[in-house]
């Protein structure tokens, strides 16, 4: 570890990509990493998608501008392993087997549950997704992105599917739910962002719970509520990967060690503070290193969590490619 730190300090710089400052507490994570090791972090294209991250390293590898580390969704991670270098962090054993590629090509870092964030001052309490079809939600319900492009949006449609009798293997009921939502005039097709929420345009948002917190969307915690349906508890993880052609290979590995560190101020607990659920949460709860206040502040999860397998995610994307536009156009 001391040797890794010395080598990383010598490189002096780390290139990260597609990490918005208000996404899972990344703003503070980057700041703390720099403060701790004196390594400058260059944040490339914070609002890029996972697919664009891979394109960036394909185009920029061989230059000092390529991203050293990636934070990508499952579909992109499994499809791009030829670009990754395997790396096992020192806390490897604390990460559940289902969340890591066996040789460490990609490793689940943090995740959350699909949720509905909403302005309770305007709508009262929401207890089921079918309520959203009612007339008081005219033009109010929005997704975070287009489900044929964005992971968060695809999972939003999948949550609606699970809540209306669908299964992880079939997203059709979810597409039908959004069709009804559109027919009722309730589906707002603008992409929900903190800016549209602030403007009052998208007061009901389907998104990962860690992106739906009152702090992230800039709303008062007293009125902005986050609801995870008990009949559609859909979880999803993001994955860390090290670029095989990383211009700063030691800094990249030190960054991974930092992100998976169980220290009180380390990657795992900082993600937790940002509302995301770190992959070592179970191990950290049993060894007592978890930030208990932050863990208690997470929105409650009642139902049995469902995680999409790669086959299920691909089937959902294929169905959306053929049917989404027709259902809501």
């Amino acid at each position: 570890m001391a040797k890794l730190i010395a080598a990383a300090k010598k490189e002096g710089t780390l290139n990260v990509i597609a990490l918005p400052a208000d996404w899972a507490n990344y703003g503070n994570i980057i700041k703390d990493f720099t403060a701790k090791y004196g390594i400058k972090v260059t944040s490339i294209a914070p609002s890029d998608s996972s697919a664009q991250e891979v394109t960036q390293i394909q185009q920029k590898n061989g230059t000092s501008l390529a991203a050293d580390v990636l934070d990508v969704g499952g579909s992109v991670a499994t499809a791009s392993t030829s670009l990754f270098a395997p790396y096992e962090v020192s806390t490897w054993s604390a990460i559940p087997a289902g969340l890591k590629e066996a040789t460490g090509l990609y490793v689940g870092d943090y995740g959350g549950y699909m949720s509905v964030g909403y302005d309770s001052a305007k709508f009262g309490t929401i207890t089921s997704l079918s309520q959203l079809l009612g007339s008081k939600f005219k033009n109010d319900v929005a997704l975070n992105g287009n489900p044929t492009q964005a992971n968060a949006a695809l999972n939003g449609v999948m949550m609606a599917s699970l809540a209306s009798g669908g299964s992880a293997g079939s997203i059709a009921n979810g597409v039908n739910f959004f069709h009804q939502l559109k027919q009722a005039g309730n589906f707002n097709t603008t992409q929900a962002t903190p800016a549209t929420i602030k403007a009052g345009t998208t007061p009901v948002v389907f998104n990962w719970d860690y992106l739906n917190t009152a702090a992230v969307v800039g709303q008062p915690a007293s009125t902005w509520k986050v609801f995870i349906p008990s009949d559609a508890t859909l979880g999803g993880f993001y994955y860390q990967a090290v670029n095989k052609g990383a211009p700063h290979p030691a800094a990249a590995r030190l960054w991974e060690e930092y992100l998976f560190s169980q220290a009180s101020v380390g990657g795992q607990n900082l993600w937790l503070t940002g509302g995301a659920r770190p992959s070592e949460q179970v191990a950290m709860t049993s060894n007592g290193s978890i930030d208990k206040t932050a863990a208690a502040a997470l929105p409650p999860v009642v139902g049995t969590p469902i995680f999409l397998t790669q086959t299920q995610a691909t089937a959902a994307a294929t169905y959306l490619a053929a049917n989404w536009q027709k259902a809501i156009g």
Partner: protein
Amino acid sequence: MSSATATDVGARPVRAGRRPPLAWVGTVPFLAYAAVFLLLPTGLVIWNAFKGNSGGWTFANISALNTGPVRSAFTGSLQLCVISSVIGAILGAILAYAVASGDPDGLIRRLYIAGSGVLAQFGGVTLAFAFLATIGPAGLLLHASWYLNFPWGISLIYCYFQIPLMVLVFLPAVDGLKIQWREAAENLGGSTWHYWRYVAGPLLAPAFTGAALLLFANALSAFATIEAWEDQVNYVVPQSIGGSLISEVGLANVHEGDALALGMIVVVVIVMTGYFLLQGRAARWQR
């Protein structure tokens, strides 16, 4: 004078004709720029449109153009471009005529030209958000349910930059109308209708159509505005290309994006050919 002429002829350097002409050197920077930033990317798009994802040559990307979502994106692009360019051209032309008939050195004219120059460049997320916050579902001014209607809602937003662009490109043609022509028409007993029908109309028609085609091409390539306006349906081709590049759920296909871009190049080539033919006609009387 005759001696001076003789001297001129005698003094003409005999060797001048043999010196290789160097005037073309001045065009090198422009041609090099066009080659690197226009011809090379266009060539790469065409080349890559026939490449498969796993290497090798294929027509699969081209045949993917003949699927429901892509056909509707091309139809949507044409609808949006025609509506926004026709409305923009007509209103912009009327505005240009109003400006041209005012004081040529007046404050109003300078304000209009400066304002049009700024507004013609206003677009993207800021423009879409300005409309969303003003007339969107929770707008400050009115709650317009048709705001998210395609093609009319987005056409209205596009007109915001199409009309000023029309003023800028059409004003020189309107300025070219000479007051004497109108006087001549009146002296010959023609009415206002006759003047517009037989003199001004035919003279302005090529410039008007040319400017409208420019507006068409301008609307065709716009991406950020419509993407910020609406996110769920790929109404126009640039949105489909965006999807083929950024999809993180496993639907990204860069070469399909190249094929879509090739389809747009075909549309632009047709439109620009029309534009150049019309420009040729317009230039004849403007000389």
